[in-house]
């Protein structure tokens, strides 16, 4: 199933460094799957993956090619809050510079302007994304199908009570065909800004949406090496998993 495997070092097209943000506190509902998919697919495309973790208090890694961050519980969000604010500068610079990033659920919210809880408390975000989130009464749970102009049909599973509204500085990832997405009113899911893909979808997102994984890898390779020479990953299971997932009830 993995004919390409990792290229021998001398044949590698080069190393791409992936940083997982706060895996200790912000990794829920299989968000680790996104990091694993990046690691494997980078190798399947003939590059050498380097997967680093960044947790609260760590020195921030240099030479970052891709950033991936997941969701967490309320307790996890509280733990990382101060550290994230202290890293707002470097993360904003990387984002504005065009570093590809995947931000899921909790970190999608915290890369926005703020999260206002139902009791009125305001948790500041780092404002990389022009979005704001308000705590809702209802938990939005279930399978989601999104029509994305860039990535085609995006499949995943949402589980959140935050209602996110997009400002004019970002565009949605896509329109929801099943499920709720960002909020109960607008009918769209996720956000796109520069090379950032932000979304509420777990599932994990990347395994069943290799188009998004390859967008992140291609962008990273082009930025680092000037061009991207794709490999030939076997996506036959991904195609079938997508077909079956798309038919499942909400």
């Amino acid at each position, binding site marked *: 199933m993995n004919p390409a495997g990792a290229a021998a070092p001398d044949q590698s097209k080069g190393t791409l460094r992936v940083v997982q943000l706060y895996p200790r506190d912000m990794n*829920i509902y299989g968000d680790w799957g996104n990091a694993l998919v990046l690691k494997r697919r980078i190798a399947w495309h003939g590059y050498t993956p380097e997967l680093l*973790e960044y947790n609260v*208090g760590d020195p921030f890694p240099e030479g970052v090619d891709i950033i991936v961050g997941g969701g967490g519980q309320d307790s996890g969000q509280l733990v990382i809050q101060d550290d994230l604010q202290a890293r707002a500068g470097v993360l904003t610079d990387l984002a504005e510079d065009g570093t590809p990033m995947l931000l899921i659920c909790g970190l999608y919210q915290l890369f926005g302007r703020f999260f206002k809880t139902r009791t009125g408390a305001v948790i500041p975000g780092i404002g990389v994304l022009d979005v704001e989130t308000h705590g809702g009464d209802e938990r939005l749970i279930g*399978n989601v199908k999104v029509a994305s102009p860039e990535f085609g049909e995006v499949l995943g599973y949402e589980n959140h009570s935050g209602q996110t509204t997009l400002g004019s500085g970002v565009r949605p990832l896509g329109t929801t065909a099943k499920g709720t997405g960002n909020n109960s009113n607008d009918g769209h899911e996720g956000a796109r800004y520069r090379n950032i893909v932000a979304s509420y979808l777990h599932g994990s997102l990347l*395994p069943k949406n290799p188009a998004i994984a390859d967008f992140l890898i291609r962008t990273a390779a082009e930025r680092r090496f000037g061009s991207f020479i794709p490999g030939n990953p076997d996506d036959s299971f991904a195609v079938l998993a997508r077909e079956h*997932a798309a038919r499942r009830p909400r």
Partner: protein
Amino acid sequence: MVFFSVPLGKLVRRVSRLRGGGSALPGLVVEKIDPGFMRRTLSTLPHGVAVVSGTNGKTTTTKMVVELLESQGLKVFTNRTGSNFTRGVAAALLGEVDWRGKLDADVAVLELDEAHAVHFVNSVPPRYCLLLNVLRDQLDRFGEIDKTAQLLQHIAAKTTGTVVLNREDPRVARIADTLTGQEVKYFGLDDSLLGTFPNDDDMRAAPGSPAPAALPAKPQADVVLRKVGADSAEFEYDGGTVTTAMKLRGVYNIFNAAAALALARSICGAGAAATDHETLLQALSQVAPAFGRGESLTVEGQPLDLVLVKNPSGFRLGLKSFPAAGYATMIAINDNYADGRDMSWLWDVEFDSLRDGGVELLTGSRAYDMALRLQYDDVQVGAVEPDIAPALAAFIRESQGKPKRIFCTYTAMLAIRRELSKITTVEVVS
């Protein structure tokens, strides 16, 4: 009302039985016309009510506690039906009480689903509770793991006598800090076994990343699981160590046996005088897993293990407890409501241990999600057939002469048992 509700409920129970109906309706009838029925009936028991709760292993643990108490000569009322909790208990009570509403039992041991916990303990405060674990499982239903911990905390707070806690699960052990009047006891693991029980929090802590702040010293546990052998286990309590044969397989089941032992000792009274050790250990060695929690069957002269997997911790423990070598392996993943619709959890399990032998067959409504997961862990897949009946037939045909193992989600297990019963005699453990 009191005088009529029990006979009426019993009548409804008989009628609904005749109609092949479920167990909840008669309970509902009694609940509606006589809401105090359950509390009144349970409050007459000399040893009171003990509840068992937690994400994983409630059913088997409850069954163990019942068998341990029965070995000590106690008459135990328990809820064996899986229907809506409060009504299910009311319905089970109706089956057991006499026509005046008197329950002939010494103690009630009830499996309490977290979802129904608050309602139940508010109306019937238990004398004992046993809290097993808080794992990422039913997040679909509760949203957050910390919320589940709060529900367990509420059970403990409402308990009037003894609270038995899992010392090794930080979210459960921490409940002790919030209690004031209750006696707190723990069940625990030997340090050498801790590695087999990663909790959800350190699941992804990478080697080399600095450890979280040092944990406070562990409290003394009433019962400690020291060692697990092929078909035996070593427990420590009352300052001594005992080795006993075990019918239960899998480390996590045997850890739950330590939990059951701790609760049974609380109810009977610990110490040599209060309990008959011989009969207690004898009962422990005879406990078999509850229906649907995993079991060993025989198909065409070869063993076939069914291992229930329903959350990342359970799947990881299953893979660890049942090594793949020498076995043909099948995995059956459904995403029906009872299984949980979200497939994310498969990405929180590492499947490296299946890499050497590969997996013969994948089945279930999310068989291709499983195939994709295994591809990313470099595990070879023989075939994928989402339809369970033909998949099972092919698996049995193609792994002839080899012991077999099937990891399956809840509804997949039910389907597999149904199919197997056409081929072999499936033992029903009630």
